Structure formats: structure tokens, C-alpha cells
């Protein structure tokens, strides 16, 4: 029964994950270098670009820890290197688990790592997750230049509208997620409200007292504070 986990945890896949990681790191460094040069050309100071870099890196810490938690949750049924690779390239945890489930269900197996989940079911999960995640990358590879031209037309017509469209798109993403914990009630609701209140406090501090460094920490602070409130309220409500 544990057969497939021996395969899933074999050193070949750790090695393969390392190779993929290398390509991702090269991409990140190349984009930073390219953007940095272009920034200098159009008159951005190194200091401001460094502020942006630092803020992006700091903001990545907490969400990355949540990805590690997803990795821990997935490793029980899919081994360690495979979820690591899937979460590093294109994927995100909810999608990957759905895809792995589709792979298992196609073989008539209900739960990941549960009864009947042998090496063939695991292989099917692996194929379905990988090919499902491939589409968005392929679309970007083949069509991104064309999408760009469509948006370029809009931009030439009305740059103000482009700014609004960007903000509106941000709102759209946030607003579909935001009501879920609020409607769920209980600890998720309390956590959401705490996150929002802490962000408002940070915004007030930044505005009233001009604490500029707080800009980089407003999101992590609000999130960690809200998460701490989740621990406290889980204990109170239990």
C-alpha cells in the first residue's frame, strides 16, 4: 500500500525539483535586472526601486508560509517532492488538490492516499495535475503578445480609464474572496474584521504621523495580527 509513496518520495523527483527551481530563480533575476535598467532609463532612483523590491520580498513571507502549510497538508497523500514542484510551477494549493482529486476519481478512487490509491492512481493524479496546470502557461506563451495589443489600443485612447480598469480589476479579485469568511461567520469572520481594522489603523498611522516604513509592513502586520486573533478566538469559542 505504501508502494506509491516510495516512488513519490524518490530522490529523482527532488533532483528534478531542484532543476526547475534553478530556472525559476534565473527568470526572477533576469526580470529584476531588466526592470532595474529600464527604471534607471526613465528616471526612477535606485532607492525607490529598492523600496519596491524590499516591500515585495517582505510581503511574500507570510503567504509563502501558508504555501508551506499547504505543502505539509498535501505531502501525506502525494509525497513531498511532487507537491513541492506543483506549488513552485504555475500551481496553487486549491487547484492542485482539485486536479489530484479528478485524477483519482477518474480511476474510481474517492480520496487521495485513501483506500485503493495505488501507484497507478498516483500516476493518473500526476498527469491530470500537470496537464491541467499547463494550459495557462501555454496560453501565455502563445498569445500574450496579442492580448497586449488589445490593451495597448485602450491605453492610447484613454490613460485615465486604464488606471481605473487596473484598480477595478484589483477590486474584483479581492471582492470575490472577501465575502466568503464574512458569510461563514465565527472565527473566519473575526479574523477578516481584525485584518481590516488593523489595516485601517496602519493607514491612519501612515497618514497622520507620516511613518513611511510602515507602508512595507502594513499588510504583514495586519495579517499576522488577524491570524493571532484567530488563535485566540478559536480557544475562546471552543
Amino acid at each position, binding site marked *: 500500500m505504501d508502494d506509491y509513496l516510495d516512488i513519490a518520495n524518490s530522490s529523482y523527483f527532488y533532483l528534478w525539483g531542484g532543476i526547475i527551481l534553478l530556472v525559476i530563480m534565473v527568470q526572477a533575476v533576469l526580470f529584476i535586472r531588466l526592470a532595474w535598467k529600464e527604471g534607471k532609463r526613465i528616471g526612477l532612483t535606485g532607492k525607490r526601486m529598492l523600496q519596491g523590491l524590499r516591500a515585495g520580498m517582505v510581503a511574500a513571507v507570510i503567504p509563502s508560509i501558508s504555501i508551506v502549510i499547504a505543502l505539509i497538508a498535501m505531502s501525506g497523500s502525494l509525497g513531498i517532492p511532487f507537491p513541492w*514542484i506543483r506549488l513552485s510551477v504555475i500551481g496553487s494549493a486549491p487547484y492542485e488538490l482539485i486536479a489530484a482529486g479528478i485524477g483519482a476519481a477518474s480511476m474510481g478512487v474517492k480520496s487521495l492516499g485513501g483506500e485503493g490509491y495505488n501507484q497507478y492512481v498516483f500516476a493518473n493524479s500526476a498527469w491530470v495535475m500537470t496537464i491541467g496546470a499547463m494550459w495557462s502557461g501555454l496560453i501565455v506563451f502563445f498569445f500574450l503578445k496579442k492580448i497586449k495589443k488589445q490593451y495597448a489600443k485602450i491605453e492610447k485612447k484613454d490613460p485615465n480609464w486604464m488606471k481605473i480598469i487596473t484598480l477595478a480589476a484589483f477590486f474584483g479579485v479581492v471582492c470575490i*474572496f472577501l465575502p466568503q469568511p464574512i458569510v461563514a461567520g465565527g472565527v473566519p469572520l473575526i479574523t477578516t474584521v481584525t485584518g481590516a481594522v488593523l489595516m485601517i489603523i496602519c493607514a491612519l498611522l501612515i497618514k497622520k504621523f507620516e511613518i513611511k516604513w510602515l507602508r512595507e509592513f*502594513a499588510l504583514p502586520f495586519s495579517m499576522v495580527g488577524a491570524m493571532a486573533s484567530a488563535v485566540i478566538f478559536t480557544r475562546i469559542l471552543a
Partner: protein
Amino acid sequence: MAKNTSTLNSNEIFESHVHRIGRITIFTCIVLALFVPVLIWMIFGIIPPIKPLIFGIINVSVFMIPLSIAEIFSFYPVLGPSGIYISYTTGNISNLKVPCAAIGMEAAEVKPATKEGDIISTIAMAGSVIVSELILIMGVILLVPLSGYLKDSVLNPAFEQILPALFGALGAYFILKNYKLAIVPLAFGFAVSMFTDKITALIPVCVLLAILGARLFYKKGWVTAE
């Protein structure tokens, strides 16, 4: 006039570099990722029976192809071309790349949808990738001894609630910034959440509605670009 032309050319050179780096790296990663199930086949000789394999692939593709197209369209104005390449190489877009880009632009005091904003968000997102991959590596290294331990610890509710924490904070941030733009998508978000918690497929719909609402408000002069 001569100066204008040279600026335009430099912009185009920059963009062609973005596409070249992006396309080479994203294609390499797609091929390398595809090799994972191929390795299961080649090294261990394990390939699933053909019928469930094809069935699974069709099922996941029917759901992923339209979702990906709509998602790429809706993320394009948020992330820009370089951001799209970075995001679709490494994934975790709405929970990692989008907030990191926003916070990066906020810290460097540049506006989204400007050239400066595009450059800063590229730098911030690429930086977030490096940090996130390193943390993931540390996670892999620490995973074996810690796995049974963390899941049962008192801290578990904190990690479970990371998304409510994130979107509470981000929601407040955006509503403080321009609450009128939140009216339409937030109404839709609440209406939907009454009926289902499977919202992944509705992200593109909500983004589209937010943009249509913004268009209406913009035409009527109710919202301005600061």
C-alpha cells in the same frame, strides 16, 4: 519629434526583452513540469490505464482552459506583461503576486498602470518569487520532522485563517483607497457567497463586473483616476 521616436523605440526594445525572457523561461518550465509524470513512466514503468488517463485530462482541461483565458485577461491590467510571465511561471497569483505587486508600488510611491508602476511591480513580484521559493525549500527541508507536529499545534487556526486575514486587510486597503469601485464587485461577491463557496471559477466574472461597473461610474463622472 526625434526625441519622441527614440523614447518609443526604447520602450519597444524593453518590451521585446520582456517577451523574450518570459517566453523562454515559461516554456522551459512547462516542459520540465511535464517531465514529472513522464519520469514516473520512464523510471518506474508506471503509466495509468489509457481510458481514465484521457478522461481525467479532458475533465481538468474543460475546466482549466476557459478559466485560464478569462483569468489571464483579467490579471493582465493588474500585473502587466512581465508580471503575467512571472505569475504564470510560478503560480499563487491572487494570494502572493497580486498583493506583493500592490504593496511594492505603494512602498515606492508609484501608481499602477503607469510605466513606473509596471517596473516597480515587476521588481516586487520577482523579489517575492525568490523569497517564496527559498521559504518553500526550507519548508521541504524541515518537513519530515515537523509534519505531524505543526498540524496539531495551537497555531493551526492561524494558518487556516490566513486567507480571511489577507483579504480582510487587502479589502480595507482598497476600500479606503476608492470605495465607489468596490460597490459592484462586493455586491456580486456577497450575492454569490450566499449560494456557494466554490468561487474559483467566478473570479473572472467578478473582475469583469468590477470593470463594467467602473466603466459606468467613470462615464457618469462618479469616479476619477485621482
